[in-house]
């Protein structure tokens, strides 16, 4: 996904820990997220959950486990 694009969160792959953490931070299946910026050197991705206003930086590894459907 490129900066400025939006998508709907479908589900999370990966372990229970990471999954719970993402959900507790306020990103849940069904939410619409927007990519605000992508960190250089393989760095984190800065996203906003448009549904509730939460903003989160997510490392590439964890981000790759969030399954989304581009809008």
């Amino acid at each position, binding site marked *: 996904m490129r900066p400025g694009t939006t998508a709907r969160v479908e589900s999370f792959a990966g372990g229970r820990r990471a999954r719970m953490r993402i959900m507790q931070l306020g990103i849940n299946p069904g939410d619409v997220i927007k990519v605000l910026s992508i960190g250089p050197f*393989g760095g984190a991705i800065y996203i906003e959950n448009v549904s509730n*206003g939460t903003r989160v930086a997510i490392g590439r590894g964890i981000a790759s486990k969030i399954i989304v459907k581009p809008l």
Partner: protein
Amino acid sequence: MKSYGPVKIALVGQPNCGKSTLFNALVGLKAQTSNLPGTTVQYTRSRMNYRGRIFDIIDLPGTYSLSSQDMAEHETLKYLLTEEVDLIINVMDATLLSRSLELTLQLMELGKPMIIALNMMDEAKSKGIYIDVKKLQEILGIPVIPTVAVHGKGLKELFEKILEVLKTEKAPEFYRCSRIVEERIKKLAHEIEKAVGPNFKIPPRLIAIKLLESDDYFVDLMKGYPGILSLAENMRNELEDLMGAPSPDVIHAERHNLSMRIAEKVTKVQHRLKKSLDDKIDSVVMHPVLGYGILGVVFFLFFYLIFKIGSPLEEFFTGPFDRLLDVVHTQVSGELLRFVLEGLVQGIAGGIGIVLPYFIPLVFLLSFLEDLGYLPRVAFLLDGLMHKIGLHGKSIIPLILGYGCSVPAIAATRILDNERDRIISALLVPLVPCAARITVIFALVAYFLGPWWALFFFVFNIFVVALLGRIINGFFKTPSYGLLMEIPSYKIPSLKITFDKTWLQVKNFIYLAWPLLIAGSVVLGVIQYLNIDNLINTVFSPLVHTVLGLPREVGTTLIFGILRKELTLVMLSQALGSEIGKLDRVLTREQIVVFTMFVTFYIPCISTIGIIWREYGKKIMFYSILVGLTVATLTGVLFRILV
């Protein structure tokens, strides 16, 4: 209402919702606050008196949910379950109502009287979010008090409500889940109640829910009841089959959906002025290219401002003390008295003339950056680079805090999610120059060799820290877990709070460190009089003189420097028999560089050693000292050859 003893009130809320700010507003400045999630890693307690009642107010670490995933959350959970709390104040961030409610719903299960402090109401308003407080109160059945902790708004109402709630001691009712889930919770809770008996302190319903979430803490709590655990496991499997998702996710979804429905009912969102401003700032600050430019400018300005403010003050204050020292040196006849007086003057001069001019602007600027909300953004920008040294972006936060003081920076490593990240960060933090060592760098390197040299020092330091991170990382086999961090919205720091925070630290310096500086200085005077310093210097001469090429007299100052790093500077002039402003007459440029480099890296100060021991044990503490000495010697020799 309890008729004797203090009333125990716990502040609980999600990270960065303003708990510590509210705590400080309630009890006067005691806790560290900042605009980054997870500043409070251990709880702070303060006793206060309101209308003749004694309250013990406890500021607990922020937690997204009532679970035991990281150290801060574990601390909060354990406190709430094992200490007899009389009342919970649930601090909520009004701008993130729906997510905050997920914690609220869990707190309601604790069966304790509860009040909600709906904080950051001003923020919410400027984001165009309007919350119907009365309706929220009705739905939850818990009193809700709107507050703006930064400006002290709503505190009186909060206190009045506390007194009122304590009178009735009414605990909130718990929420209900959808039928399939609710049936199982009820049944499991019933079995738990039968097993543990009616006098068990933790509500069975809470245990039931947490077992269905497979929370480690509660599984451990129930390990004496294998029947309960296997029943819970069966139910988890049933739920997974029926709902098509793992049981913990199902329970989470119940709370999440309920929270969303409640938030929708009580919130009206209109124009979004503030948000678009945040967006505009972030489009530059968080930009993959421009962001680095800004970061460079901030880094440069940070040190440049400290130097620009500090160096004229240093000059201004040291002048009179140098003259006073001249007078003592020529006029006082008794030798012992002269040594003692010289030590005394050097110690006092060191505090006023050298430390405070740099210390105050440094603490002020760091606290400003923290409150602004910039540090989490640095974590985002540097995430990619931090991976190259085996860490992720979040680890940058303890390292940045290290520019202030290593002790809270080591404590802040607790915000990291796993052990390896914490240990690597804890080993790196003492290598970042703290306020004391920055003072030494400014007062020696910048003052005598020029500000660009000092800037080079800071850049070189980052290079060394990165290199070392890479090396230490080689010893660990597991890779880093990755960054997952909330980015708070920008807040214009309240000048009053920034001044208060600065003052708190300056006060600590004046009361705790300065007397030590003066005493150390006087002791050195006596040691010199008794000629013991010769002995110490001879012992350390192989390292100090032969390897590093420094005057032998420096040996004693390095020993004292382990107490407080500022002592190296104050005692340096005393040991060499020179005034601080004229050190360049007794030390060459090369020696100034080597000395400062060595002081920056060598053994952590005694307080830092102490906290590493407490947090990580003797082994890591030993490694930390070893790493420091090795790096200090290597860089010292390197610069001896290069300069």
